């Protein structure tokens, strides 16, 4: 009896809300919230029925860089306890899963069945709910579009307690407003996703060192369409003729026909390495960054064709060590991700020149060509996206990024809410001209504006 009662109290205590400081992956601008951990839809529904003084917002694995899954002084609902699989249809290659499940778990379960997630970002530790709310993209955006493009339907629990079956055709408004809506339309409960069929768990990768930005852009325009996956790493500290030199990675899933030996279908494993929380903020300066960039450029072969790599090695280099975000030290870092439309390569070049001129200590700069976008608050538009990690302690960061934002705005581009932690609120409307319509839809389903996050407050996303 004693044991039983202890077991019961243990389960209960696990579900109790707790007050916690939260940050995003960039570890900046912490704020305190009451975090709830529902393990069922009923529990979630009853939490939502309670009054919440400063609103509520869903949180998954906290991989957004800024503040969309924080709610200062309010309530944050951690949905990662809900990660069931409801249905697998091997013929249609669709799965129905809880929103709290991670892409990591999905790969572990579904890769052995020959199904791969349709879109994966640089980390597989994101939830399906977060993937929809940020309408994430991956190395295959130019071919496959965003995560939202592969969602057939989802169930949404609104702030007033209604469960709505949202299908692209029957509820187009709510569907589009939720994909990229940063969790501000409701709580995604389950989603049905069309997966990609794969024959092996290997990717055939072409790797090439490219001498400068002009060649990189030309090369990506020329042959991106021959690859399902394509992304470039850029050395922003290189100068002069080497400005924007980089390494281009392009790949396709390996088929049985072109694999030697028996085909492998193996899901990813969790990394055992972790970065300790001890890195001093002072070591991430320009010198270290230059040394790293030089090393990373030289480490790659000039040209390598069809090298087979496991899925996780190709897609998730960031996941090789846990807590990789700690390498930037205790002050954290900002990831700036912008997109400029096709034809405005001049803006891209200008941004690279600024980063190079100011000797900004960057390590992970990623350039990717994007296909057509989805509208409302979804980030991608046809063009070029550049993502830059910069440690927060770097002097002049704020002013430099504001200047870059102006260039992006002038080029008709925009910034990515899943990465943002510092943009000017005035830029939201010119960058996302569909926002008035998004606000109407969000207000229709959350009329009392109970859904709120630090991001929505900081940028005034819900409007006045």
């Amino acid at each position, binding site marked *: 009896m004693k044991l039983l009662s202890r077991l019961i109290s243990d389960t209960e205590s696990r579900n109790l809300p707790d007050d916690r400081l939260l940050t995003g992956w960039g570890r*900046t601008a912490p704020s305190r919230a009451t975090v709830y951990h529902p393990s069922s839809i009923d529990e979630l529904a009853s939490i939502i029925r309670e009054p919440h003084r400063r609103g509520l917002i869903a949180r998954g694995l906290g991989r957004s860089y800024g503040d969309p899954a924080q709610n200062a002084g309010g309530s944050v609902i951690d949905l990662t306890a809900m990660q069931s699989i409801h249905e697998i249809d091997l013929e249609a290659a669709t799965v129905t899963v809880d929103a709290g499940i991670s892409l990591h778990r999905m790969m572990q379960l579904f890769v052995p069945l020959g199904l791969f997630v349709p879109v994966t970002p640089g980390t597989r530790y994101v939830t399906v709910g977060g993937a929809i709310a940020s309408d994430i993209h991956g190395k295959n955006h130019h071919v496959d579009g965003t995560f939202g493009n592969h969602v057939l339907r989802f169930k949404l629990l609104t702030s007033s307690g209604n469960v709505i079956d949202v299908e692209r055709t029957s509820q187009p408004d709510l569907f589009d407003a939720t994909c990229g809506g940063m969790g501000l339309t409701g709580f995604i409960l389950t989603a049905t996703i069309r997966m990609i069929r794969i024959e092996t768990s290997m990717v055939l990768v072409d790797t090439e060192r490219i001498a400068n930005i002009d060649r990189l852009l030309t090369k990506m325009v020329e042959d991106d369409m021959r690859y399902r996956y394509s992304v470039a790493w850029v050395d922003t500290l290189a100068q002069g003729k080497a400005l924007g030199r980089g390494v281009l990675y392009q790949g396709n899933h390996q088929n049985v026909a072109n694999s030697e030996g028996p085909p492998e279908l193996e899901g990813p494993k969790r990394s055992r390495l972790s970065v300790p929380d001890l890195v001093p903020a002072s070591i991430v300066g320009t010198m270290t960054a230059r040394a790293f960039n030089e090393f990373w450029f030289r480490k790659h072969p000039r040209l390598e064709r069809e090298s087979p790599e496991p899925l996780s090695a190709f897609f998730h280099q960031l996941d090789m060590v846990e807590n990789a975000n700690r390498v930037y030290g205790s002050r954290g870092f900002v990831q700036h991700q912008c997109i400029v439309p096709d034809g405005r390569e001049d803006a891209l070049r200008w941004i690279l020149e600024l980063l190079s001129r100011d000797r900004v200590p960057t390590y992970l700069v990623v350039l990717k060509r994007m296909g057509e976008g989805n509208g409302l608050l979804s980030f991608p538009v046809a063009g070029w996206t550049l993502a830059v990690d910069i440690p927060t*302690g770097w002097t002049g960061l*704020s002013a430099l990024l504001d200047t870059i934002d102006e260039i992006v705005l002038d080029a008709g581009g925009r910034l990515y809410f899943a990465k943002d932690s510092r943009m000017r*609120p005035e830029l939201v409307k010119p960058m996302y001209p569909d926002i008035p319509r998004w606000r109407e839809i969000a207000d229709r389903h959350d009329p009392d504006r109970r859904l709120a996050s630090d991001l929505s407050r900081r940028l005034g996303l819900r409007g006045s």
Partner: protein
Amino acid sequence: MKNAVGSVQSALIIGGDSDIAFATCERLVRDRLQRLILAGRNVENLESRASALKAVAPAVSYRCLDLDVLDFDSHEAFTSEAFADGDVDLVIVAAGLLGDQARDEHDPARAIEVIETNFTGPVSLLIPIADRLVDQGHGTIIVLSSVAAERARRSNFLYGASKAGIDWFSQGLGDALHGSGVGVMIVRPGFAKTKMTSDLDIPPMATDADAVADSIIRGLRRQSEFVWVPGKLRWVMAILRHLPRPIFRRLPL
């Protein structure tokens, strides 16, 4: 909300007529500030400060609130008023009175005024303000202390004692608020050339309101807990703090 690089969108200034506070506001309104509340004894002065800022940043909304730091009973109501329009991301306590050491050390009423303006009054305000910030789950408090808080000096120990009081209170408050999302930053300027010190001779390593404001902004960007202006004063004071008294007493400080 504050952002990842320490920019704030709303600020409350206690002692809104202070030169250092004004110089800091000039920088804040050019950055992300949307709402500024200036509080102080003389609303006319506050309004002229606000209109000077408005010339730089017309889109910011300005509010001037009447506040007597010595009227402790009014502080709860004042705090409610200051937070009535929404979250306050940043509170700067800049109210201060230098006094006249030679005169005040023989005049208890004036001595008490220095202590209450610099220490008791700010404590009486910071308690309800800190509670509001904890409720909103985020915020930064900046307290203007002084290098005079580091060691008692013959020439200004009344002012020094009051600043030591508020400095120690703020350090403890910072620890009490650790983990609440609210941070406390203590600023210790050396001699700053402002209207407060306009009658005094300028000693070496003197600073001014603009330099202090720049350091405050840098402190916000770096989430500093202590800011010395100029920065080297930290090391100078580390030595002076430990000098034997017979030697320290003879220094022309």
